Structure formats: C-alpha cells, structure tokens
C-alpha cells in the first residue's frame, strides 16, 4: 500500500544516484567483491558521507510478525537518517521474490537485506548479489550456503522451545499434562520450537511432564480454535498449553475460555505480539510468551549500513561486522512484560 508513495522518490533518488556516482560504479561493482564476503570497502563510495543505499526484500506481510519486520526496517532507516532504503514486499512465493531481488540488484544498492520466503529457493539469487559485489544481510531464514550472505541475523527458534520447556518445568514443578499446539507441520520453525521444548522438559523432568496431545494449527487463530476445541473434548485434565505463536494462541485462548476451563490450566505463546503482552499483564490464563524479536530487521539495517561503510561494531575488537548473529529468545512474564512491551508488535 505504501509502496506507491515511494515509487517517485526512489526513482528520483535512483536517477540522481546514477548521475552523481557514475564514476564510482566500477568501484562499487569490482571493489567490494565476492564469495568470501568480507566487503573490504574502507574506501567505498559511501565513506565520504553520502547516504547508504540499502535494498530490502521480505515476503508479503500476512502475519503480525512479518508486518513488524518490514515496519521496523522502515522506521530504523528513517531514524538513522543517512540510509536510503528501498523496500519491496508483498510476494508470497519464492520465484516472485527472486524476481524482485533481481530487480533490486540491477539498481546496484550498497547492501541488500533479505528475509527469504524460503532460504533454499532464494540462495541462487543471493549468491548472484554477492558475486555482483553487493553484500547480503540474511534475516531469519537461513540461505543454504554461507557464501550467499555476508552476515546472518536470526532469532532462536530452538531457544524459544528450550526456554518454554524450562518455564513449564518450573511452573508445573515437573508434574502434569501438557498440550502442544504447533505451527505449520514440516517447517524448521515448528520443528525447532517443538524439539527445544521436548529436550528441555525431558532433561529437567524426564517423564514427569507428559505431552498428552500435539497438533499443528498452522499459525492460524481459527485453526487453533477448532483444534483446541477437539483436544478439550479428549482430555479432562490439562495443566498447561504450549503454543508456537501468539496470533494462533488467540484462538486457543478462545477455545479454553468458551469451554470455561481457564482456571484449570495456563497457556504460553511465542513471538511477542502486543495483544499477548496485554494479556500477560492482566494475568490469568495467558502466562508467558517467548520473544522472537522482529527488531532483528532493524538490526539488519544497521548491520547493512556498517558493512556498506566498511565499519565494524564498536563494542567488538574486530574491525568488521560479525558473520553470524543470533537474537536471544527472551522469556516474557508478568514480571518483565512492562520492560519489553515496546518491542511487541
């Protein structure tokens, strides 16, 4: 929707850029090259104070979290002031996103920030960008080859499961029946959130905590509602529910409240939506969520800017940006929700 507003300024900036930096183009293309990715561009066109041109590509925002990813990138670029951000989004399949990125590469940005629809499918086009001398910052879903990105920044899906498992072990004192409402079956996010959870309760409680039902609800609230309705029919004694997503959890909460069984159990989400944090603040059924922080796209913009300028992170000894960064999965409960609420989406 906002895309149109940017078309004209971007085209204008583009035209100016071509005119002003015409002479530097070869430098940009040849200087900061290639597979090893450590863009050694201390003398790049940007260190003389001009704005850094960053291109950003993410799948269509059909989910609160994805919407926050794009929004955070946009806001960060505005805040930094010296970043000229071109955003493309809205596609829902990998081939279309690859086409989009091809177009972005043709515009010769100083850096490219990509949250791929699927890491595997978009690896070739990311490699192409790297070969064209455009450093790629890979957000969230990892490319199949390390050569396809200069820096990777991800959340910690296994960590979400692990922290949730530990939270359940503490809250239930290693005794009880647990229901798991998963995301989309067969994708890495779901598998990791599930595995981390199982590993943690196994290690802490052995067989003290039983997972009595585990069903996918595809990250969708209405699916979460009907799946949980059926599970409530099957089990009379549920102590806690671990859900893989805050939006989906809304439906699970409705199912439990409609059945008037909210006092029997507690529930946790994942992701970190504002609605979930509101519920945690109120207390009751919704006891905790585990951050999978969409601020990572804002960090990605910062990293891309530093890479384009050939600078490193001030707090680190190395003169360059690290090649991998993992954003931790924070446990959000009644106690700390006030501190992290501004991160909610």
């Amino acid at each position, binding site marked *: 929707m906002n895309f149109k507003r940017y078309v004209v300024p971007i085209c204008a900036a583009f035209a100016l850029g071509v005119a002003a930096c015409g002479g530097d183009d070869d430098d940009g293309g040849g200087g900061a090259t290639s597979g090893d990715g450590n863009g050694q561009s201390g003398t790049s066109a940007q260190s003389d104070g001009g704005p850094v041109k960053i291109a950003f590509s993410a799948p269509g925002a*059909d*989910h609160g979290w994805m919407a926050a990813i794009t929004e955070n990138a946009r806001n960060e670029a505005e805040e930094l002031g010296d970043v000229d951000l071109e955003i493309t989004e809205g596609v829902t399949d990998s081939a279309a996103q690859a086409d989009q990125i091809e177009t972005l590469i043709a515009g010769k940005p100083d850096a490219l920030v990509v949250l791929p629809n699927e890491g595997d499918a978009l690896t070739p086009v990311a490699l192409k960008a790297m070969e064209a001398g455009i450093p790629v910052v890979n957000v969230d879903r990892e490319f199949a080859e390390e050569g396809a990105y200069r820096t990777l920044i991800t959340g910690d899906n296994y960590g979400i499961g692990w922290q949730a498992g530990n939270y359940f072990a503490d809250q239930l004192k290693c005794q009880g029946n647990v229901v798991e409402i998963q995301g989309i079956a067969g994708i890495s996010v779901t598998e990791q959130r599930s595995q981390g959870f199982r590993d943690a309760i196994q290690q802490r409680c052995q067989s003290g905590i039983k997972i009595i039902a585990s*069903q996918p609800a595809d990250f969708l*609230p*209405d699916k979460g*509602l*009907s*799946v949980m309705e059926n599970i409530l029919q099957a089990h009379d004694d549920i102590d806690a529910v671990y859900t893989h997503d805050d*939006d989906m959890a809304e439906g699970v909460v409705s199912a439990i409240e409609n059945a008037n069984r909210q006092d029997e159990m507690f529930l946790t989400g994942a992701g970190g939506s504002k*609605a979930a944090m509101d519920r945690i603040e109120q207390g009751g059924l919704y006891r905790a969520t585990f951050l999978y922080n969409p601020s990572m796209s804002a960090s990605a913009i910062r990293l891309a800017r530093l890479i384009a300028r050939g600078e490193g992170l001030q707090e680190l000894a190395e003169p360059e940006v690290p090649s991998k960064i993992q954003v931790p999965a924070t446990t959000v409960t009644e106690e700390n929700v006030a501190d992290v609420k501004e991160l909610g989406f």
Partner: protein
Amino acid sequence: MTTVPPEAAPSRRSLPFGLSASRIELQEYTLALVVVLLVIVGAVLEPDDFLNSDNMLNVLRQASVVGVLAIGMTFVIATGGIDLSVGSMVAAAAVAGGQVADSGSLAFLLGAIGMGVLLGGVNAGMIAYGRVVPFIATLAMFTMARGIALWLSDKTPVSIFQLEAVRWFGNGEVIGVPSAIIVFVAVTIVAWVLLNRTRYGRHVVAVGGNREAARIAGVKVQRIVFSVYVLSGICVAIAAILVSGRLASASPVIGNLYELDAIAAVVIGGTALSGGRATIVGTFLGVLTFALIFNLLTLMDLPTEIQQITKGVIILAAVLIQRRER
C-alpha cells in the same frame, strides 16, 4: 434432490426425471451411511470421548462455519460455477465488521454483511455481466479479498470481546443447543426449500443443466447467475459472524482454505461439479463427514500427516462408493 436434464429446463419433475432424482437420493443415503459408519468407528476407537452429546454438539458447531459456506457453494456449483473466494471473503467480512466494532454489535453485523454482499456482488457482476469465467473471477477475488482484509485491519486482529451479541453467535446457546448450530440448520432448511420447492431453485439447476435451453425456456440466465454469487456472499457474512463470535476477535488471517473444504463437502455430497444437479441434504452430510473425521483424528492425537492421508482416502472412498451405487 432437484435434477433438471438439459432439455427440460424450467419444467417440473415428471417421470423421466424421477429416475435421476432417485439417483441423487441414493447418493444421499450412501453418504448418510458413511456418516453413521464414522460415528460407529469413532465410538469404538474413542469410547470415552467421542460419542457423547458434548462432543457431538462440538462437532456440529465446528461444522457450522464451513457448513454455511458449503450451502452457498451448492447454489453456485448447481449453476456450473465455482467460488474460490469464500475463505478470503470470510476474513474481509470479519475485518469489515471489526472496523466498526466500536459502534456496537449491530454495526459489526451490518459491516460484515455489507462486505460479504459487496464482494459477492463484485463476483456476481464480473461473472454474470462481465462474462469472466467463474474460476478466474473468484480466483481474482480470492487474492483481493485477503488483501482487503489485511489492508483494512492493518494486519492486526481486532478484539470484539465486548460485543456480547456477536459473541452469542459463536458461543451462546438455546436450550442447550449452541447458537451456531441453530444458524447452520436454519440456513440449511431455508436453502433446501429454496432449491427444491421454489421456481427460483428450479431455475438455478436449469441454468447449470443447459444454459441455452434454460434461456429459450424463458429463464433469466444472467440474473440467476448473478444471484447465486450474491447468495454465496451472504453465506460468507454469516460464516464470518459465526467464526468471529467464537474467536471473540476479527482477524484478517482466518478462513484460510475454507473454500476447498466447502467445495469438497459439496462434491462428496453428490452435487455435480459441472452443474445441473444439486442436493442440500448431500452437502449437509458432506460437511458432517469432514467435521467428524477432523474431530476423531484429533481426539486420537494422530500425527498430522496421517490425518491428511486419511482425509484424502475418505474423500476418494466416499465418491467411489457413490459411483458404484449408480
């Protein structure tokens, strides 16, 4: 239950058509048998949790959302059309209601119905008067309606917890029967009468049977085609109200793939995808079949891959049994 062979467009059922009418009745009986079989299997596999009034009401309530959509879909398919957009339109209608939720329950209901009728009307206009193939027109609406839902809602669900009247549709009950079930059954009965006992119903089936013959016989074909997509839009609005009431929120991501569930229920019910033959009772039983399968497999906590395979096998089996009965 109504069948009109090509040449007999708007006329009533006389003897030669009695034959094919009984074929559809046969399909309804076999599907009823499938439903009974599922209930028996469920009672054996899950003796404690499956066959009790609580769970049966739960199954019916869950069936009501896709059920209402499938009833509308039956009219569309009876004319030889298809509506791929109902799932996305449910989200758009729910969100439209959510946008005006501050003004109370009535505003929500009007917003949802308005959006359902509007989008259904766009489908209808494109197909009846713009001569766009139904598959394409509703495919376009499938993506547009989802976009409208995300755009209006700014990609975030709106809580409608305070709207008691809307929540009644999802959560209330009348003498122990959930209101969603009452709505679903009422829609089914109205649709049955409309299709089987009115001139309008005969015209709908006639248009699907042989459009040219229907036209010659004086049926206003364009008007009939237009009406079924609007009808589908109204059903969308009802479904949106039921699901939002149940969720206590208006979310832009609901309704995903509901169109496929609705179409599958209509088809295993015995309505011909090519049009000209339609059965409301069959659709009702088809919806029940899927709701029972989903309920039973979740009760058994089977892994999702087993559920998906089972569902596919049962679709094929149901259709095969019906074919053999021919």
